[in-house]
C-alpha cells in the first residue's frame, strides 16, 4: 500500500494507485507510470481533501504542516538528499493537480528548496557554480511569477540572488522566504488559493463541477541531468511525429538539465549517442516507449533525465502529430491491433486531410522556377497574383476582379482590408509572430514574412507565386497541382473504411451517378458554409447535390439533415469524415491528450 503520513498526505511508492479524486491528475500520472514499472522521481501528494478543508476553514488544516514535514523526510530518505542543507541538497517541484484538469490552477514551481546555502552545496556537488546560480535564479523567477503573481522582476541576466530578491520585494512588497520549509508552505498555500481563482470558479460553474472537490498538491524530488558524464536529459517520441514512421525518434543532451534542451542553445545528439554511452538506459528507454504507447494507445512524447546512470521518466503525453503522420499512424495502429477502424477514423479530422491534399506547386514547375525573394514560411498555402505594395490599392484591384498579392515592409491593422482582399501576403521584416504571420494564419491566407529589408522593392506589378509553406516568392504564375486520396496509401485505406460506415455517400465528380446531383453552383446561400443548411432545406426531390459549399463540414451536416443520399466532392475523404463525425456527435476528441 501507499504510505500515509496522516490524514492529508500520501507517499507514492508504486504500490497501487490511490483514487484520482483524492490525489489529482498529476500524482495519478506519476502512480500510473510507477504501475507500468517505470522509474519516476519520488513524490508525495497532499490530497484534495486537504484543499477542501483549507477552503472551508480559510486556514491550513490542523496537522498538515507536520505531515508535510514527514513527507519531506520520506523524500530525503528515498533520494539520499537533504531538504535545505548540503552536501547533497534536495530540491523539489510543486504542482497543482485537480481530479479533472481545469484552467486557473497554479502552475509548476521548480527548484524549490534552494537558497544561498544549498546553492553553494549544489555548485560543489555538480562542479558547476553557474548552473547552481541559474537554478537559484529560475526558482526566484518562478516563485515571483507563479506564487506572488508578479511580472518578471528578475532580469534574464546579470545580478545576484540578493539583488533578485530585492527586485521581487520592490515589485510585490513580499519577501521570498530563505527557509525552504517556508518556501514550500507558501507554494502549497498558493495552490490551495488557486482553487478559488476567477478562471477556476468560472470553469467549474460552466461544467457543473462541485466547488468542494479541491485540488491536490504534488511535491516531487528534482533530478539532475548534469551531475557527471553518466547524466543527461532528453526527449523521445515513440514514433516519428513528422512522417509517422514506426521507429522511435529522440534527442539526448549529455550533462544537461531539461531547460537546456528546450532553450535551443545546445545541439542535442541523436538517441544513438545514448545507445553508445549508456546502453542499459537506452534499452530501458526504448522498452518504456513501447509500454507507454500501448498503455496510452497513442504516440507518446516522453521526457526523461538520467542522473548518474539512473533513468527517470518525468512525463509522457500524446504527441502532437503532423497531418501526414496522423494519417499513417491511424492506419498502422489498426494493423497492429492497438485500436479498431472506428477509433482510427475518429483520430483524423476532415481539416487534417484537407491540409494534406491542399494544392501545391507542381514539382516540375518548381524545378525551373526563379525565386524573387525568400523569407520564413508563416502560413501554408499557395497564392498567385500581381504583386501590390499598398493595401488600399490591393483592395481596389481585388474588387475589380484581379488576383493580387500584398507585399509590405511590415503589416499593421492599417493593412487588414488589403490582406483580406489578397491571395497571399509577403513582408520584408518580422518573424513567425509578426502581425502579418498572425493575421495571415487567422485568415487562412498564405504568408511569407521576413524576406529582408528592401527585398520586395521593384517587384510591384509582377505576377508572382507565393508558397507560404517554404517561404519562397517565385516569378510568374507556376503550375499548381493537387493530389488525391489515391496518392497516399494511408488515405486510400481510411477512405475505404470511412465509405463503408458513412451515413452519406460521397462520390467523385467522375462517377456516372454524379450527373444526377442538383448543381448548387451559382446559388448564393449554398456558397456560404453558414447558410448552406438553409439552402438545402429548400431543395425538393433531389437525391444528391454538388457545388457550392457542399463539401464543407457544414455542407455535409446540411445534406444529412435534408435527407440526401449522396454528395459529389473532390477529395471525398474530408466529407466522409465529416459525415461520420456528424453521425457520432458524441465522439471523443480525435487526439487523446491525457498524460499517463
Amino acid at each position, binding site marked *: 500500500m501507499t504510505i500515509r503520513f496522516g490524514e492529508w498526505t500520501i507517499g507514492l511508492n508504486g504500490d497501487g494507485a490511490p483514487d484520482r479524486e483524492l490525489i489529482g491528475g498529476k500524482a495519478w500520472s506519476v502512480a500510473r507510470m510507477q504501475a507500468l514499472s517505470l522509474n519516476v522521481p519520488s513524490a508525495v501528494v497532499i490530497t484534495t481533501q486537504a484543499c477542501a478543508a483549507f477552503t472551508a476553514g480559510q486556514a491550513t488544516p490542523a496537522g498538515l504542516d507536520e505531515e508535510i514535514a514527514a513527507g519531506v523526510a520520506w523524500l530525503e530518505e528515498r533520494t539520499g538528499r537533504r531538504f535545505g542543507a548540503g552536501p547533497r541538497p534536495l530540491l523539489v517541484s510543486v504542482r497543482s493537480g485537480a481530479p479533472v484538469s481545469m484552467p486557473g490552477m497554479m502552475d509548476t514551481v521548480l527548484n524549490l528548496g534552494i537558497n544561498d546555502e544549498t546553492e553553494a552545496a549544489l555548485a560543489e556537488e555538480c562542479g558547476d557554480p553557474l548552473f547552481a546560480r541559474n537554478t537559484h535564479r529560475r526558482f526566484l523567477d518562478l516563485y515571483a511569477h507563479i506564487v506572488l503573481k508578479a511580472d518578471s522582476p528578475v532580469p534574464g541576466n546579470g545580478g545576484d540572488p540578493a539583488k533578485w530578491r530585492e527586485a521581487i520585494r520592490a515589485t510585490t512588497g513580499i519577501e521570498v522566504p530563505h527557509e525552504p520549509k517556508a518556501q514550500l508552505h507558501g507554494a502549497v498555500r498558493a495552490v490551495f488559493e488557486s482553487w478559488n481563482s476567477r478562471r477556476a470558479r468560472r470553469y467549474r460553474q460552466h461544467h457543473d463541477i462541485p466547488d468542494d472537490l479541491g485540488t491536490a498538491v504534488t511535491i516531487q524530488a528534482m533530478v539532475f541531468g548534469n551531475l557527471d558524464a553518466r547524466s543527461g536529459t532528453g526527449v523521445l517520441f515513440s514514433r516519428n511525429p513528422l512522417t509517422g514512421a514506426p521507429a522511435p525518434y529522440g534527442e539526448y543532451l549529455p550533462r544537461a538539465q531539461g531547460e537546456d534542451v528546450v532553450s535551443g542553445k545546445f545541439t542535442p545528439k541523436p538517441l544513438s549517442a545514448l545507445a553508445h554511452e549508456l546502453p542499459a538506459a537506452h534499452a530501458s528507454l526504448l522498452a518504456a516507449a513501447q509500454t507507454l504507447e500501448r498503455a496510452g494507445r497513442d504516440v507518446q512524447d516522453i521526457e526523461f533525465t538520467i542522473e548518474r546512470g539512473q533513468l527517470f521518466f518525468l512525463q509522457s503525453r500524446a504527441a502532437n502529430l503532423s497531418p501526414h503522420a496522423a494519417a499513417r499512424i491511424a492506419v498502422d495502429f489498426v494493423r497492429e491491433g492497438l485500436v479498431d477502424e472506428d477509433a482510427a477514423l475518429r483520430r483524423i479530422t476532415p481539416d487534417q486531410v484537407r491540409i494534406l491534399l491542399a494544392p501545391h506547386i507542381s514539382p516540375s514547375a518548381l524545378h525551373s522556377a526563379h525565386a524573387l525573394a525568400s523569407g520564413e514560411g508563416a502560413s501554408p498555402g499557395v497564392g498567385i497574383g500581381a504583386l501590390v505594395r499598398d493595401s488600399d490599392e490591393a483592395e481596389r484591384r481585388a474588387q475589380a476582379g484581379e488576383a493580387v498579392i500584398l507585399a509590405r515592409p511590415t503589416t499593421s491593422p492599417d493593412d487588414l482590408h488589403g*490582406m483580406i482582399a489578397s491571395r497571399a501576403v509577403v513582408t520584408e521584416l518580422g518573424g513567425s*509572430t509578426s502581425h502579418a504571420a498572425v493575421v495571415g494564419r487567422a485568415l487562412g491566407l498564405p504568408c511569407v514574412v521576413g524576406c529582408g529589408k528592401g527585398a520586395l522593392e521593384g517587384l510591384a506589378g509582377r505576377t508572382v507565386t507565393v508558397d507560404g509553406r517554404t517561404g519562397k516568392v517565385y516569378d510568374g504564375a507556376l503550375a499548381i497541382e493537387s493530389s488525391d486520396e489515391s496518392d497516399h496509401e494511408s488515405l486510400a485505406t481510411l477512405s475505404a473504411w470511412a465509405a463503408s460506415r458513412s451515413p452519406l455517400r460521397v462520390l467523385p465528380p467522375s462517377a456516372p451517378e454524379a450527373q444526377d446531383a442538383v448543381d448548387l453552383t451559382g446559388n448564393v446561400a449554398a456558397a456560404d458554409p453558414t447558410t448552406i443548411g438553409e439552402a438545402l432545406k429548400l431543395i425538393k426531390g433531389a437525391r444528391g447535390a454538388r457545388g457550392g459549399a457542399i463539401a464543407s463540414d457544414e455542407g455535409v451536416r446540411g445534406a444529412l439533415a435534408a435527407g440526401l443520399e449522396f454528395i459529389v466532392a473532390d477529395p471525398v475523404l474530408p466529407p466522409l469524415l465529416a459525415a461520420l463525425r456528424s453521425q457520432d456527435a458524441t465522439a471523443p476528441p480525435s487526439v487523446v491528450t491525457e498524460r499517463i
Partner: protein
Amino acid sequence: MTVSETHLVMHGLAIKKHATPEAVAGIVGLDVEDVRAALGKLVEAKRVVEAHGKYLLAPAARMALDADYSCLYEDVRAHPDFAAGYEAFERLNGGLKRLITEWQTIDVRGEGVPNDHSNKAYDDRIIDRLGDLHERAEGALDRLACVLPRFSIYREKLGMALEKAEDGAIEWVSDARIESYHTLWFELHEDLLRLMRREREE
C-alpha cells in the same frame, strides 16, 4: 487633459481603420450618434472618406492626427503611471504574441503545423494561459486608465473576448474579423504606440 470629440473620432478611426460609426464609438467610448455627427462633418471637410457605410481617414487627416499626438498627449507621456503601464504592456506583448503563434501553429518536432483545433486539450491549455496573461494585463490597464479613463474600455472588451473563448467560442481568441482578444490587443497596442509616438517593431 481634454481632447475634442473630433480628435477622438479620428483617433478611433485610425485604430479601427475601415470602420462603422458603431465600431469607432465602441473603442473610444463615445455615443454612436455623436460619432455619426462628427463623421458627417469630417466627410464634408474631406478629412474622412465614406464607402459602403464604413469610414476611412483621408491622407491629410492622418498627418493632422500625427501632429495632434505630439502636442495633445505630452503630459500623458510624462505621467509615471502611464509610462509604467505602457512598459508593463510591452513586456506582456511578447508573451501574447508567442501565445497566439502557439494557438495557430502546433510545434511538431520543430516544424510548425497549422492548429486545426481538433485537440481540445491543447486549445484549453492555451486559453488558460491567455487567462493568466489577461490577469497580469489588467494591472497594466488599470494604471493606464488612472491617467486616461478610456483605457478601461480595453480591459472590459478584452475580458469579454476572453470569457467567450473560455466558454468554447474559440474564434474569440484570434479571429481578425471580429473584436477577438488578439484584434483588441493589437488595437490597444496601436493606440498606445500612437500616444507614445513609438514605432511598431515588426
